[in-house]
């Protein structure tokens, strides 16, 4: 028996280990609840503009992956300052990277397509949430991919690239949690799914920026936004699920600001008979992303023309040299 085991190295226990779970925390009963974060900004205040002691503004940057034809990185800062008494951050921030490959010709084996074939892949990094994600995409990630595809399909003018493919690859480096970590329901990854709506809105915005960077023909810029309703009937924009114990319904949209249209709508929960207000709230939140997207677009256009000018100037100089 012992002969079969490897005795030259110190091996890990065969059955794996699990962290101890204590029946009772050492601290006083109310301690855990005292760590619960609360929403400090107003119900209509967006996450990105919120000024906390050490918080920063939303970061959206294009052209971060040189080998891709377009790429972008989005960071929405955490909403609460980290507490002094616990090492666990009370709320999470959102960090998403998108890269775009294509438009490129479809492989010979693929059937003819009269339009651009859009493939969206959304993947959480294994460390993106408190609950570890595997390396293979699970159903939530695939579902996000379908939502993102619906959001982008309406925007991209696909008929201009027959027989071509476009791959949008999104990696979520840090995602929003479904609930506060101290709540029972937050464990095991089978949460309410409110966090996914925030992630989807982020994915839409960042993918839109990456498409812009790849200079693909679109009818408009699509931007993501989220709104939710709490149990007492209050509408909150860009909710951070950890700050609300009692969300009853939430809605994420992909919004085309200049056309006033919605390409993607994902609404869930008990909204009653009239979801209009919630959808409107989500579009307001999306307007916040639109302004960021516009800034980024101008900035990247500026850099691009500058680079192009420099290149042409250098070429001109080259001509002079040889002539």
């Amino acid at each position, binding site marked *: 028996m012992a002969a079969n085991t490897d005795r030259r190295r110190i091996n890990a226990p065969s059955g794996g280990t699990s962290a101890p779970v204590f029946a009772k925390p050492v601290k006083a009963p109310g301690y855990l609840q005292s760590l619960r974060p609360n929403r400090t900004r107003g119900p209509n205040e967006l996450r990105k503009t919120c000024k906390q002691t050490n918080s920063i503004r939303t970061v959206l940057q294009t052209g971060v992956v040189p080998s891709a034809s377009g790429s972008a990185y989005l960071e929405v800062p955490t909403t609460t300052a980290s507490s002094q008494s616990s090492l666990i951050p009370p709320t999470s921030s959102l960090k998403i990277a998108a890269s775009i490959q294509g438009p490129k010709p479809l492989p010979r084996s693929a059937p003819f397509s009269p*339009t651009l074939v859009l493939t969206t892949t959304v993947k959480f990094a294994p460390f993106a949430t408190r609950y570890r994600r595997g390396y293979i995409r699970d*159903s939530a990630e695939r579902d996000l991919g379908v939502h993102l595809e619906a959001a982008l*399909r*309406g925007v991209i*003018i696909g008929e201009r690239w027959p027989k071509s493919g476009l791959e949008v690859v999104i990696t979520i480096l840090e995602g929003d949690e479904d609930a506060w970590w101290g709540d029972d329901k937050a*464990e095991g990854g089978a949460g309410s799914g409110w966090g996914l709506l925030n992630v989807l809105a982020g994915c839409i915005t960042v993918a839109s920026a990456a498409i812009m960077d790849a200079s693909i023909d679109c009818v408009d810029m699509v931007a993501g936004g989220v709104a939710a309703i709490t149990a007492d009937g209050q509408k909150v924009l860009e909710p951070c699920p950890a700050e609300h114990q009692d969300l009853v319904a939430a809605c994420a949209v992909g919004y085309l600001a200049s056309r006033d249209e919605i390409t993607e709508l994902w609404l869930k929960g008990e909204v009653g008979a009239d979801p209009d207000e919630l959808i409107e709230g989500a579009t307001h939140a999306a307007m916040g992303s639109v302004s960021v997207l516009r800034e980024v677009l101008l900035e990247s256009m500026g850099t691009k023309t500058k680079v192009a000018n420099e290149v042409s100037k250098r070429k001109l100089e080259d001509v002079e040299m040889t002539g």
Partner: protein
Amino acid sequence: MAPPQLQHVNLSPAELSFLRSTLCQDPPIRFDHTKGPKDFRSMRAEYDVLPGANGSARIALEDGTEALVGVKAEVEKSQWRPSGDAQLRDADADANDKDAKAKGQNSWMEMSVEIPGFRDDDALPVFLASMLTESLLASGGLKDRLYINSRFHWKLYIDVGGSFLVHISMLTVQILLLSPPLSYPLALLSMTTHLALLTSRLPALKSDKDEDPLFDDDWDAAVFLYPKSKANASEDKPPVIVLAMAVGPNIIFDPCMEELAVADAVLAIACANATASSSRARIVSVRTIDPPSHLTPPGVPNSMNSATGGTVPASSAEALTQRELFANSGVWTPPRGGMKRGLISQVVKMVVEEGGVAEEVISALHAIELG
């Protein structure tokens, strides 16, 4: 590689353009001209078809698409979670039978959707399963009824299959679609799941509180998962999903494959029936669906086609400009952009209003069970 699509409609740009213009008329002339914009396709439905399941149903459309749903429940040990307040927990245990509210967990229901020709991780089955799951879980009533005591709960498996099968398992709901879908199968699956859940029963519990659960072995004594009251207006029923598409100024419900190929936008709306607290149907989930019309080939106008006496544009840039100019001339161009907000609220209103589509579908499914 391109992912598998729903069976593609092979319509030429000219046919698409014709279909669209008929659908845009007032009143619209549908692909099946005998139907109005709110009419559903006729179907045959039966329930309790699988003897080994807690509940099951089968619905067949006349075009041959059919769905089979089995609901199976298993007793499962609840995972005990440490909670800070031991006192609170004891109080909970005392009150647990009276108040099982908000004790249900989302993981107690597992849904699997099988569609022939698709792998279970393809986009379509994943999307269908998550839409069905989230509409069932939205109200919280179902999952709370799966609570037995602080140590045990039912797990429901729903298996959906088609030419279409649905499998509901732990409450396993399995949906099995038996034939490849000839139209977008969401509404069909949801109606079959609704019927299966409406008729599924759980064995009656004989034990008290926190004892190990012991059940009455008389199937006749079994209780319905969705309890039935005499006054049937206010009882809780599973939600149904209605598919609506917008084309031009018109809104059409339960579109068939060919109609979807010319849709401007498609919306799936899950709604639950009216309860005591609200007189109208309630929305529990709404999603946009990417219409297949985005994938249709654009038409080539005669003036750009040398075979019909036109001149082929010299450069691709010129071709693009000419194409844009022809956008509104009746030559087929795949729709662009999304849905106006006003249109969404109009669709939602048509679904939830009194005597609206949702009420009609739910009462029709209820009638199957009675009759």
